[in-house]
């Protein structure tokens, strides 16, 4: 297998799907002539032309709505938000239209659309531009929510998202775009299904559930814990809606303990959903309360030292694993 960066994997997914299906098109701010604000769409304009790679004004509500309308009449748009923070001005389009039309039309109209872009904190972009938005979208019936951590998952899930007949929220990460990882070779098509958690690391002592940027924090913490003899099983759900709890429950039945690590705030959201399911489905197997390591419950500070404290750290993950293990 070759190594690709996360952004290259996303680009390949879009390129392959646009080649495969001429109804697929990309629309958003700076996706074309600027080659993408984060260079995810680099080269796509040259390849597919202005009819299929469309630059928009700074008007998220407008181009999200155009995308939804295009999807309703048979096209398969990919709508790029420059960051998910800007999706808030298009929130009504996503929630009230994209997520509802299929049900309100009694199944007559599909909305095959992907909304994608970087999610969460980048580096010192402060409180208004650092939102981890999964909790806002994951609770909406009618939406799928993907949050891939690795280049391979990013490519495989985006291809599945583009082929989906229903709206998909696709959460990437500015700090993830440069991450390298193994991706199947050219010509080997891999579609990763929604609702299939991936066991990223095996261990018998504690289950860690994590996704997105903190996936790498948790994996690093797991390595350090392993050096001290505590083997963590790390599970990445990859899609937050649907959420595949099977491997998590199986793992907790083995380890008797669970720590959930995520970037979004602690109040509610997919992190709390995982805890809820674990306590219900593995109650008789828990030896300790399920713990969470989350983004701290504050608006993101601008100062780098404070930002680093707010985001989940290896130290906090290690402490949580030790607490649920009743270890000193």
């Amino acid at each position, binding site marked *: 297998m070759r190594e690709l960066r996360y952004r290259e994997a996303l680009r390949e997914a879009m390129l392959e799907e646009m080649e495969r299906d001429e109804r697929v098109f990309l629309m958003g701010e700076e996706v074309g002539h600027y080659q993408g604000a984060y260079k995810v769409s680099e080269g796509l304009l040259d390849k597919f032309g202005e009819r299929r790679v469309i630059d928009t004004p700074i008007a998220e509500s407008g181009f999200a709505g155009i995308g939804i309308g295009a999807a309703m009449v048979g096209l398969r748009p990919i709508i790029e938000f420059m960051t998910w923070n800007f999706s808030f001005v298009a929130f009504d389009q996503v929630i009230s239209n994209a997520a509802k039309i299929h049900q309100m039309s009694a199944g007559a109209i599909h909305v095959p659309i992907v909304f994608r872009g970087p999610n969460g904190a980048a580096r010192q972009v402060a409180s208004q531009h650092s939102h981890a938005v999964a909790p806002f979208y994951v609770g909406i019936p009618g939406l799928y929510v993907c949050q891939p951590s690795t280049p391979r998952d990013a490519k495989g899930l985006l291809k599945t998202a583009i082929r989906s007949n229903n709206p998909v929220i696709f959460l990437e990460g500015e700090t993830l775009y440069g991450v390298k990882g193994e991706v199947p070779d050219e010509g080997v098509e891999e579609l990763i299904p929604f609702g299939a958690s991936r066991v990223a690391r095996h261990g018998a002592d504690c289950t860690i559930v994590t996704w997105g940027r903190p996936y790498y924090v948790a994996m690093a913490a797991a390595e350090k814990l392993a050096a001290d003899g505590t083997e963590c099983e790390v599970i990445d759900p990859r899609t937050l809606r649907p959420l595949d709890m099977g491997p998590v429950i199986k793992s907790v039945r083995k380890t008797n303990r669970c720590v959930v690590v995520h970037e979004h705030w602690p109040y509610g959201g997919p992190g709390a959903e995982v805890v809820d399911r674990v306590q219900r489905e593995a*109650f008789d197997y*828990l*030896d*300790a309360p399920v713990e969470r390591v989350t983004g701290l419950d504050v608006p993101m500070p601008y100062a780098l030292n404070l930002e680093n404290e707010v985001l989940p750290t290896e130290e906090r993950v290690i402490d949580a694993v030790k607490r649920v293990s*009743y270890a000193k």
Partner: protein
Amino acid sequence: MAKIIGLPKLSPTMEEGTLVSWAKKEGDSVDVDDLLAEVETDKATMEFRSFDRGVLLKILVPEGVTLEAEVPVAIIGKAGEDITELLAQVEAAGAPRKEAASPRGEGIATESETPSGPMAESAPESAPESAPVSTTGGNGGRVISSPLVRRLARERSIDLGSVQGTGPHGRIVKRDIESYTGPGATSTMLSGERLPPEVRQASSMRRTIARRLTESTQSIPHYYLTIDCDIGPLSDARKAMNAELEADAKKVSLNDLIIKAAAVALRRVPEVNASWMGKEIHYHQVVDISVAVAVDDGLMTPVIRDADRKGITQIADEVRHLAGRARERKLSIEEMTNGTFSISNLGMYGIEEFTAVINPPEAAILAVGTIREEPVVQAGEVVPGRRMRFTMSCDHRIVDGAVGARYMAAFKRIIESPLNMLL
């Protein structure tokens, strides 16, 4: 043990409550979860239910009084129990309505198992570290444990009250139940893991048995002789004797007769009634038969002295008496040492034959099997028979094969023709 009951915190924010009405009066019996009183808190009028079982010995607070949480309101104990010390303790801590200096401390005092004088004095100040954080003035006897532990305890029938918790607030966690060795700690599967064996200290009796039998099999060259006897005549003799003894309300058992027969046979072949003592052989002048008796967790061998010369009823009486003392662990050393020959009988378990380990320094042990009712060929005819097999383990250093065989033949003659005992 009587204990002081404090006013529980009935809501997380409750700091004081008004005791609206008592649901029980002094002298009433109280069960766990019985309604004791109605208490008006900052939220609502709530039920104050008992965590304890016993008798409401004393009501310390009249209805209508407002108190801080955890202030003593009643004493519960056994009927007629002396509570003067507890009352003094309540008095010392201040009148109930007065502000309590350390309400939590008092709550803990009510938990103390032995409210003796000195403890009662120190109670209001002392707040033991192990005191669990609680909203009801203690855990009310509740065992705190993880869900996993509760499931394992259910599966293995472990009483969690007997397991020490090492988690926060004394929570019993997986490692506590894994290191627990009490009843129920069996080798059940634990989510795919194999449990280690349960470790128990060997009793001194078991250690003695282990040492002596190991010595015996390692140092004595054992060999075994089995003989099959017609037990009909002996059974008939026993029946006749018991009919005769009925008036005296006495009975002899087959085993008593076998003891007598073995003893008489030892007189006939005295080489077997001997001990290997290293450089010399001791030929015993007396016939003292050790009888193996199973007791809880082991066995003992009380000795019937001069069994060759005693009457059957006397042997029967002594066996019954000594076996009883053995089961009560009351045998004296004299009563269980210095036998010259042993008999072990497993017939009552249906064992047909077996070999026993010699009880040194004796030279032989006779293993007695069960009675078998089976067809036998007698003078060319198949007839119903009652048979029994005896196996003697012999110390080859003293008892050679021919000697042992002669003994078994003599024994068989006596068993099959009980009148021989009289010769």
